[in-house]
């Protein structure tokens, strides 16, 4: 499934009566836990994300300097993380949530999420997933054309940064999570919270 996500503030909600599309609500939420410096020095952060497309899994991404280690685990991993948070820090556990309706049109899946960070509205993320294809390079143009159909000229012709090196690899659910994390990171930076 090739996916592109675009962060845009997007006002008019009532355009969304696509003939043939149907909706049900979904959400993605994430929690980030910075860990205090240990002997090696450097700031480590663990991001824990849940995606309602994969309800039985928990995604965790550990960032340490330039290293990024992803992990996919069962729902019970949340409990282990809870125990470990006694290890880790106290402060600054920011929670970001992206929640909204989900539409299906033929083989496309469109999700409109409004991003809120601890009750404050930050913006809107639009996620488009083209499910029949597994390699982004094949269908990038196709998705772009589809999105142009309703977002107009606001669509950039640039491939999202995360996907640039991965256009010819098989797409995994973890890639969706990475893209969301990228956008959440941008939201955090814009408010000055890391």
């Amino acid at each position: 499934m090739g996916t592109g996500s675009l962060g845009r503030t997007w006002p008019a909600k009532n355009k969304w009566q696509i003939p043939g599309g149907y909706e049900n609500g979904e959400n993605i939420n994430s929690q980030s836990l910075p860990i205090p410096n240990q002997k090696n020095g450097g700031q480590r952060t663990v991001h824990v994300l849940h995606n309602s497309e994969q309800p039985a899994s928990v995604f965790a991404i550990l960032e340490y300097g330039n290293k990024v280690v992803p992990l996919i685990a069962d729902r019970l991993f949340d409990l282990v993380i809870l125990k470990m948070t006694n290890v880790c820090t106290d402060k600054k556990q920011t929670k970001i949530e992206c929640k909204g309706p989900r539409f299906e049109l033929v083989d496309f899946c469109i999700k409109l999420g409004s991003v809120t960070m601890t009750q404050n509205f930050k913006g809107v993320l639009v996620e488009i997933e083209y499910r029949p294809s597994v390699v982004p390079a094949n269908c990038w143009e196709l998705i772009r054309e589809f999105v142009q159909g309703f977002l107009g000229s606001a669509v950039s012709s640039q491939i999202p940064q995360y996907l640039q090196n991965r256009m010819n690899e098989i797409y995994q659910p973890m890639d969706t999570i990475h893209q969301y994390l990228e956008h959440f990171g941008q939201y955090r930076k814009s408010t000055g919270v890391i």
Partner: protein
Amino acid sequence: MEQLQISLSALKVLRSSVGQVFYSLANGIRAEHGEDNKENKYLLELQELLTTVGTNLRDVEQAVNSLNPPPGPFNLGNTAYLGQETTQDRQALYGTLVNVYKWTDKAHEYSNAAHQILSQNSLKRSSMNSNRAKRNRIQTGAHNFSPPQVDQVMASFDRLYSDMSISITRPFTSNAVIHVTLGHVLKAIIAFKGLMMERVVVKSYNEQLDLWSESRYKVFQRVTDHAHATMLHFYNPNFPELTLKSFFAWFHSFISLFSDSCKRCGLYLHSALPPTWRDPKSLDPYHFECKP
């Protein structure tokens, strides 16, 4: 067989006459014998019955003597095993017999129904030659190729295109079912009868491949329909390899299913579907609605 029947009936007659003797003995002197000479009449009756028994016995002996003993031990086949385990419960024979009966019944029913439905369609691909001389010779049609020949042909197609790989399985005894993988774009399963294509199912790269279930994506459902149409378009009973060659060339053009735009309208999507139609001659991509 006749002799056996005769001896068996003679035996029956003997049994019934002996039965009569015991019956009259048990009843003793009855009212029918009248008042006078009851005992004499009774004894006469008994004598008659016993002579009948004697004649019948002679008949039986005669019949049995004329029978030939069987040449050797009987070939019981699998029923010989019945003698080994005498407890009915342990044998589980009844259960399996019932299941076998049900199964053959069902097989009959389904094949009758299938025959009825299939005979309604008078369009057939096989050619029936009613020439008497040729009837005795087995016609080499596309469906009469032997498995090693089919394997060879498929291996040559596998080598022909570098991004298309073909693997052969035979889940239904001698008829081949091939799995075709086209790059990372799609997978297809094609069922054959000899070298003649019977059925194609096209699915996405990450779906489970199976002859009976359709793809869950609309685009691949369309491609499956187009594949069936093309399969019939290219059908030629006299040149099965040419049929296959043209079909695979057409199929290979789907490597650009998501990356090419329609030749006529220039767009990638038409009602949210990519160009799924490939012109059989030029292999140009078109939307189904835009096809020339």
